[in-house]
Each structure stands twice: as C-alpha cells, then as structure tokens.
C-alpha cells in the first residue's frame, strides 16, 4: 500500500495486511500524535489495512 508521510512530505510503499496501530508501531510513530486516513476516511487503530489502500499518516502535534 501507498503511505503518505509529512514533515517532510514523502511517499513510501509498505506491504498491507497489518493494522493501523501496527503500521504506526512499525514506522516508530506515536499513536497519540498521529491519525490514519485510509482512502480519504479516518479509521481507528484496529482497522486492517490492505495492499490496495492509500494511507495518509497525519501528524497532529503542533509546536507553535
């Protein structure tokens, strides 16, 4: 699946078949500091992601 990351903006390819929480753990990203948007829709942590999904990992922490 395609995974879009921010700061800096980039796109990586990751095999599907894992949950949202697992994906964040694998990318070493905090669950409290990110949301996962699958094919344009917000999804909770136990959602299973597929190879064909387009995923946006959106950071929610601001420093200003």
């Amino acid at each position, binding site marked *: 699946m395609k995974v879009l990351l*921010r700061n800096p903006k980039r796109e990586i390819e990751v095999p599907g078949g894992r949950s949202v929480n697992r994906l964040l753990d694998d990318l070493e990203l905090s669950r*409290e*500091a990110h*949301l996962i948007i699958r094919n344009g*829709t*917000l999804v909770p942590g*136990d959602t299973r992601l597929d190879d064909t999904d387009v995923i946006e990992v959106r950071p929610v*922490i601001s420093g*200003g």
Partner: protein
Amino acid sequence: MTAQPSRCRSCKAPAVIDLPRHNANFCAEHLVQLCNRQMIKAIADFDMFSRADRLLVAVSGGKDSLAVWDMLIESGYQADGLYIGLGIGEYSEDSGGYVQRFAHERNLHLVTIDLREDYGYDVPTAAVATKRVPCSACGLSKRRLFDKAAVDGGYDAVVTGHNLDDEAAVLFGNTLRWEVDYLARQLPVLEARDGFPKKCKPLVRLTEREMAAYCLVRGIDYVVEECPMAAGNRHLGYKEALNAIEKQSPGSKSAFYLNFLSKMAPLLDGQSAAAQGEVGECERCGAPTTGDVCAFCRLVEKSGTHEAVPVEMVLKKHRRRH
C-alpha cells in the same frame, strides 16, 4: 479470532477513531458530540462566558483555532475571528488562505491584521532586529494585538485554541523548573484586569488528536504544515515525553493537567507576583504597561526601521545553531 471492525460506543456504527483515554471508539457523529460536550463542560466549570457574550477567537489557520471557532458557532455562541498575518513566508500565506476560506464559507466575521502592512515589520525581520528567537517577537505581537482588538472592538473575551496537550506541556515545563509564579497563572481563564481583556481556553479538556479528528470529520481544511520557526521548540519535546507516558497509561495527560487545576492551582492562588509594580498606560499607544513605553511599541520601533529580512535567512541561522 476474526477482527470485527470496531464499533462506536454510543450507536454501534463503525467507528472512525479509538480514544484509549476514554477506553472507547466513536463514529464521526459521536466524536463531534464528545468534543462539544467537553468544550461546554470546560466553559461551565471554569465560568468562561455565556451566549450573551461577544467573543473574539484568535485564529491561526491551524486545527485548534478553527475547530474552537466552529464548535462555538455550532453551540450558539457569538464569535468573530481575528487573524494576524505574521509574514512567515509560505506558511503565513497558506494559513491566511485557510482562515479566509473558513470564514467565507460559513459567513462569519473575520478581522484581519497584517504586521507588514499595518505595523511595518514581520516576524523574521523582528527576530533579526531584536536578536531574539522568532517566537519571542511573534508571541509579543500576537498578545498585544489580540488584546487591543478585543478592547477596541468591545468584545467580552478573547478565545484561544490551546488544547490539553498544549497546557499539559507548558505545565510539565513549569513543573520541571518549579516556576511557581508561572504555575500560579496557568489557568484556563484569566479575568480582565488593568486594561487587559478576559482570556479563555475552551479546549483544555480536548487533546490535539481529538481536535485534528474533529476537523477531519467536520470537513474543516486547516494548515497541516508546521510553522517553520517551531522546529526544535522545547514544548515539542515535552509533548513527546507526555505522549510516551500516555501510551503506557492512557488518561495520564488529562489527570496531570486537570488535577493540577482542581488540586494544586487553589493552593497557589495568590502566589503569583501580581504586584509587579503599578500598571500605567504606554505613552505611545495607551496599552497597559509598567514602563513608559510598552514592549510592543519598542518592538515596532526596532523592527519597523530594520531592512526587511526574508524568512529563509532566519531559518538558516537557526539550523546552524541546532
């Protein structure tokens, strides 16, 4: 065990978010309801304002300030927006655009101030002119202009989008150093005094993740990119530390901050050095100040006469320092 998609605690529809601190999942509709209820509870618990009051919301184009503006309007409050163009390159252009579209689409009243056009400087120039970090000149400008706009416009309170993570991070920093003076003033409401307007933070019971999710499900477009000046900010480190604790023990962040308010803040009442000398009026702009000329007027004088500095120059300088 086959994985069932998680369901909303309230209506059993498919959930869009898991909130470990509530030990529950929520659908879009009930996430919005939860956010509204938490905001209304904060407004009531801390005696912030009523629907008869005129509110001025400080909007930056980020998720928190647009969300609080949206929630206030949806709950029947009278709220106008105030946006300050800080002149931080592309970031300011983008964020101003989000704010304008938000206000326009909802037919809300937006007051706009532009530092360069109205005061002859911008944040990068002020940083160089004062030889301080950009956030220091930026914070001073925002505080003064929000106060002035609220007082001049006859508003009953200034509302900001500070959320639970922001407040917990500041509390963490102040506690690490036992800054009793700051701790005594770290409240979700500051009453009007000496020419300063009342200031309220209705989102203190809501996390950043909840506010970002609120914007997503409400279709609010906001600037996701960070202000380029925020890199290396000390508060970001505190937020990460608190989130690491939150992962081990959900609910820790809200206990840390909300129990501070209920248990510790009353003990600190009166500990703040409020009597920092007589508050008079600035001889140039009339703002409340303890000196002859207020800090903002001194900043305008220094920065307004300085040659304009592009944002890249300030960024390069900071990168070198890190």
